[in-house]
């Protein structure tokens, strides 16, 4: 194939968080991306969430920077209101038919002022608010939407359906409405396809047992999420939907639409509901500590990083009640109130606001208690294990923790283009290629591949981007656009010449603020050389005009008083740049969002405020300096630390794209933990997969493997690391040590004695990025008389027996597994995530060897999340018996008369049970290496359990806060092989974002040290999470001390420009360019002086 035979573009179907991450990874590594999204804007379900577990971060806060980045990306083309209809061709040369619905709003003209929606007479259920509120027929789905352009809902628009109205067209100040817009059929040529359509929440409607149709007080978790949200229909006030009264008791019902083959067909676990229920209960309780929150569950599945401690906190700190019982059903009980009793209704104001936002009557045909003297309760019957009785409890609100399903559209498309699905209806992938569908060239990420949470979706997005890009590597950078290089004028030494442009924004600003007066006032300010107004400053012609004026009037500072810099600053910076002026000489004044829109009844004051803000901006702008964005070369070599499955996958991913990769492995051979493992949950043979991968690694021309290697020293930072290792040998093709395939341990050159000598065999590798994949190990149990009887083994030891086909396995008549050995204990509070599925799988293997074997699994909560639940079901169906124990009554293991006895109390019968076992497997915890030295070397943090801490739990699970260092595999958290592989690919994808650029630009607005003032106290070093500041150290080899030794310096590559160091510096030695003390104090001073 020649380079041109593949298309350097990728189609990403779905604009949720998975699609967004995949698109950004690809677009940032040299591919053109078409993002096809069904709705008018991207964001997906994550945009609907109030907070995200387990940290309860504000969902919108962490997501919106990504939305904006996609929206502005030069190499991402957003195709909204569109769906894939068909796919033709094959990997590398797909043709995709896309159907795009008409928007009826010209995106190039719409300024998102919202005037149209205000005048639109048609109210429609607002799906963003789960139908709990109303929006108009012309709308943006949510205020932070990207693209922030209105769209007409053709099904509901009066003009489009009946030919009457036309209000929006009359109102639109920008002339953006186009009723004649037509649906379009597009054909896109792409090399790879990533499917990320997300999931549908299970709809409990029509199931009488949930009482969902009959009562407004039974809500789905998505609806409750909107109730909790400050931007939701209730502005975050939780009230009983039936009467807006103050709730006292809320219940969550888990597994609604999951783990149920009877009332719905979803046998799988939806994986996220336990955590989101805990999150919602905590948030609800934070809103109102007197609330009683109860979660009814079957097994608490808090198997992710930080989840178990969140669960423990929910119980202990927040007092949330957990009841292990599936509630039979919900029904309404009405209670008549005495005359004296009044409904505890939230204040009248609140109610009116609620009605204003159209909350009323949104849910169709729901029973409302019209009579204010009747109060509805939801009755839950549950079985109390303690008393053995049925308890009847009344709740104000019941939240149904609904599961995930794949839409029929997605299934149809998959069928049409020949992609296989799993039995649960998700897209099928394999353990060793977890993001590849059964159709070559089509990849997948997010919940469509199986129920999962945000971090796992983001991981898969990275993996999918990696895989999609690899196939197209020859066509990298062939279809991408480049930002034009521009020359900037040197304005150093020039007197400030400020231009002030004030925007009318149609009537958005002008209807309240006297724009001309603001302009005229600006003209009186010192250094202001030019003032003007614009009808729409953001319009193309206005920007051309501004650029011309800047040139003509030789302006060297520019101020635009209009809307928010968060959305428009980059646009005007671009305008300034096009006039040859450094973009940091721009300052924006927000007189719309912070002015006319919020002070509409105070035009005089709003005008005065606008003048003040302009004066402040001028005061700052005269002190602005042109800032440079320096180029930093990225060394094109890679170091991967750890040669297990994760490390090898990451290495292979990058090597396949042409980068030289060095694997540093401490052991004498590659393979890591996988060497001891038998099968994946997807029933792939691990030894085969491992062998296959290892041989690809050892024969790869771009990969050098160092086994028996120790890292001695690390210097440098992103783009330019120097890692010194001591190693016995390397196994690359050019290796001279003569050992084969990295198995140095077997070679005479690397006997233990010779290994010592490797200290002299040290080598320094220069590399641009580092991937940490150091793995974890299995805990050696200290309980259950482990080590005292050879019939007692750990999970991995059992796998070894399977690998070796140990005859003891078939011979056993009775086998027992004990779960949570060393996990979820006070001294090791996290859940090891993999052991439940692993034991269930091993039990099935035993059954396959000997169908008559009696097998018992003693567990605390079975955590076979996602479609692994089907293994659990299979195990039960095959007669494997599961017995639950709790921490206070752990099983007792004893040996007497040569018999191995396990005693446990049955959780149902509450009676002691004794099992005589021929084989006892302890599902032992996954323990991290807690490699503090490595953490120090790369300046990356470890958590209290000893796992590495990623940059962001949700959105950057494979990155570190430290640039240029990435993370995957067990070193991050326990996870099965498929997840490790996906994360390794994601880490490689993140690394690729850097490598493919060859150089990175430093940010302009970064901190800088004036060393003559610096006291060298190091406070800046301690406050910075990015390791940007450091104290200068002399290099001893250089002979004489560096100037300013011991004083702070900032690495401009690492600095993110937050300014925490600057404000922490007592001696004022630090400045933050663009937000310096002088500039900010000038604003403060001028705010008051007029």
């Amino acid at each position, binding site marked *: 194939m020649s380079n041109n035979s593949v298309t350097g573009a990728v189609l990403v179907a779905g604009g949720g968080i998975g699609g967004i991450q995949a698109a950004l990874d690809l677009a940032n590594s040299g591919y053109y991306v078409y993002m096809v999204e069904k709705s008018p804007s991207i964001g997906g379900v994550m945009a609907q969430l109030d907070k995200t577990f387990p940290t309860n971060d504000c969902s919108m806060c962490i997501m919106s920077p990504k939305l904006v980045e996609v929206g502005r990306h030069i190499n991402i083309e957003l195709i909204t209101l569109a769906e894939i209809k068909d796919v033709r061709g094959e990997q590398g040369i797909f043709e995709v038919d896309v159907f795009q619905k008409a928007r009826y709003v010209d995106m190039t003209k719409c300024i998102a002022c919202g005037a149209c929606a205000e005048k639109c007479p048609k109210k429609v259920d607002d799906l963003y608010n789960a139908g709990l509120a109303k929006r108009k027929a012309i709308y943006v789905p949510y205020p932070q939407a990207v693209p922030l352009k209105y769209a007409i809902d053709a099904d509901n628009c009066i003009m489009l359906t009946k030919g009457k109205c036309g209000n929006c067209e009359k109102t639109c100040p920008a002339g953006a409405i186009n009723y004649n817009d037509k649906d379009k059929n597009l054909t896109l040529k792409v090399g790879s396809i990533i499917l990320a359509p997300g999931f549908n929440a299970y709809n409990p409607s029509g199931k009488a047992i949930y009482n969902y149709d009959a009562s407004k007080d039974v809500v789905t978790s998505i609806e409750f999420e909107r109730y909790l949200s400050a931007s939701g229909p209730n502005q975050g006030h939780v009230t009983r939907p039936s009467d807006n009264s103050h709730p006292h008791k809320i219940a969550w019902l888990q597994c609604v639409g999951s783990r149920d083959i009877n009332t719905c067909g979803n046998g799988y676990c939806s994986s996220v509901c336990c955590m989101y229920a805990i999150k919602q209960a905590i948030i609800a309780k934070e809103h109102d500590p007197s609330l009683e929150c109860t979660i009814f569950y079957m097994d608490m599945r808090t198997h992710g990083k930080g989840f178990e401690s969140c669960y423990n906190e929910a119980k202990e700190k927040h007092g949330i009640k957990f009841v292990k019982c599936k509630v039979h059903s919900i029904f309404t009980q009405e209670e008549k109130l005495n005359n004296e009793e009044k409904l505890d209704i939230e204040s009248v104001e609140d109610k009116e606001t609620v009605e204003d936002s159209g909350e009323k009557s949104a849910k169709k045909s729901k029973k409302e208690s019209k009579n204010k003297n009747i109060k509805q309760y939801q009755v839950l019957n549950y079985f109390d294990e303690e008393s053995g009785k049925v308890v009847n409890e009344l709740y104000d609100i019941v939240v149904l923790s609904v599961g995930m399903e794949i839409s029929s559209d997605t299934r149809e498309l998959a069928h049409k283009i020949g992609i296989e699905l799993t039995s649960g209806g998700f897209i099928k992938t394999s353990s060793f290629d977890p993001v590849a569908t059964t159709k070559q060239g089509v990849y997948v990420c997010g919940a469509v591949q199986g129920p999962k949470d945000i971090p796992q979706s983001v991981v898969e997005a990275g993996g999918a981007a990696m895989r999609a890009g690899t196939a197209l590597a020859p066509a990298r950078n062939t279809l991408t656009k480049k930002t034009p290089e521009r020359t900037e004028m040197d304005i150093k030494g020039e007197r400030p010449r400020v231009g002030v442009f004030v925007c009318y924004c149609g009537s958005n600003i002008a209807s309240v603020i006297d724009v001309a007066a603001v302009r005229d006032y600006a003209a009186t300010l010192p250094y202001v050389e030019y003032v003007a107004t614009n009808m729409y400053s953001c319009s193309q012609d206005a920007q051309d005009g501004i650029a011309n004026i800047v040139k003509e009037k030789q302006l060297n500072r520019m101020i635009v008083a209009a809307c928010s810099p968060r959305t428009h600053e980059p646009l005007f910076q671009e305008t300034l740049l096009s006039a040859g002026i450094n973009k940091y000489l721009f300052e924006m004044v927000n007189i719309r969002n912070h002015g006319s829109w919020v002070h*509409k009844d105070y035009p005089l004051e709003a005008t005065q405020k606008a003048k003040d803000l302009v004066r*402040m901006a001028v005061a700052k702008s005269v002190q602005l300096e042109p800032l440079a964005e320096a180029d930093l070369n990225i060394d094109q070599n890679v170091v991967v630390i750890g040669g297990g499955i994760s490390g090898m996958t990451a290495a292979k991913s990058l090597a396949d794209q042409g980068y030289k990769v060095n694997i540093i492995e401490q052991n004498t051979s590659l393979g890591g933990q996988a060497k001891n493992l038998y099968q994946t949950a997807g029933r792939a043979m691990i030894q085969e997969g491992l062998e296959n991968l290892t041989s690809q690694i050892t024969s790869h021309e771009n990969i050098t493997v160092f086994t028996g290697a120790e890292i001695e020293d690390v210097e440098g930072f992103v783009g330019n690391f120097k890692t010194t290792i001591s190693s016995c040998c390397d196994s690359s093709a050019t290796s001279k040590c003569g050992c084969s395939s990295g198995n140095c341990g077997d070679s005479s050159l690397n006997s233990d004695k010779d290994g010592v000598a490797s200290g002299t065999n040290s080598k320094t590798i220069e590399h641009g990025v580092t991937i940490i994949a150091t793995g974890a190990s299995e805990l050696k149990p200290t309980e259950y008389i482990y080590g005292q009887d050879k019939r007692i083994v750990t999970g991995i030891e059992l796998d070894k027996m399977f690998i070796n086909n140990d005859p003891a396995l078939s011979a056993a008549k009775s086998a027992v597994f004990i779960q949570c050995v060393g996990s979820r204990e006070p001294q090791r509070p996290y859940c090891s995530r993999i052991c439940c599925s692993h034991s269930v799988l091993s039990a099935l293997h035993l059954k396959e060897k000997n169908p008559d074997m009696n097998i018992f699994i003693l567990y605390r909560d079975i955590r076979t999340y996602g479609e692994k639940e089907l293994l659990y079901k299979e195990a039960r169906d095959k007669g494997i018996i599961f017995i639950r124990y709790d921490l206070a009554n752990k099983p007792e293991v004893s040996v007497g008369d040569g018999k191995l006895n396990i005693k446990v109390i049955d959780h149902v019968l509450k009676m002691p049970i004794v099992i005589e076992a021929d084989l006892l497997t302890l599902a032992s915890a996954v323990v991290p290496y807690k490699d503090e030295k490595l953490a120090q070397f790369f300046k990356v943090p470890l958590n209290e359990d000893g796992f590495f801490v990623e940059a962001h739990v949700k959105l950057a699970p494979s990155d570190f806060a430290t640039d240029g260092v990435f993370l995957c595999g067990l070193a991050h958290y326990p996870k099965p092989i498929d997840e490790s592989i996906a994360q390794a690919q994601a880490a490689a994808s993140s690394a690729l974002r850097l490598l493919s650029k060859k150089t990175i630009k430093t940010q302009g607005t970064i901190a800088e040290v004036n060393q003559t003032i610096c006291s060298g106290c190091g406070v800046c070093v301690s406050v910075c999470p990015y390791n940007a500041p450091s104290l200068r150290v002399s290099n001893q080899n250089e002979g004489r001390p560096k100037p300013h030794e011991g004083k702070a310096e900032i690495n401009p590559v690492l600095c993110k420009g937050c300014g925490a160091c600057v404000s922490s510096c007592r001696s004022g030695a630090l400045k933050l360019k663009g937000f310096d003390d002088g500039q900010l104090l000038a604003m403060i001073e001028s705010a008051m002086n007029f």
Partner: protein
Amino acid sequence: MSEFEPKIITILCNWCTYGAADLAGVSRFQYPPNIRVIRVPCSGRVSPKMILSAFHNGADGIWISGCHPGDCHYITGNYYARRKFMLLKNFLEYNGIEQGRIHFSWISSAEGVKFAEVARDVVESVRKLGPAKYFIKKEFIDSNLCNCLNTDNNPDKNILEEQAA
């Protein structure tokens, strides 16, 4: 005489509270026009000198707002800010600055309503206290913008110095 209208220096972090203020705008939540917003990357950027300087210049109140603990775009910036502000506020009040002149809050970019509410509360609480009394430098109050030309901030002067050098 008309009611006293305080002027309040408001410093907002770019990622959360500034976003909340934008959202309040988009949602047309009304609040009094007494605040003057200064945008900074992170609440961790705000240093005590900005607060003291605002008082020097006659600000009647100061309001600083950032991301909720845990939400910081820069991972930990708001934790430092919180620690610093609590101490500074206590210390200023210990020195005689009235309670209610200095406000700190944490508002996420989804909390437009909260932004408007807090803005109203801040303005009201400062309005009740009346004009600022302490820490004001007389010369600033009496001066007008032209005075700034005489300070070291004067870029003209800087340029002259540079040229002379």
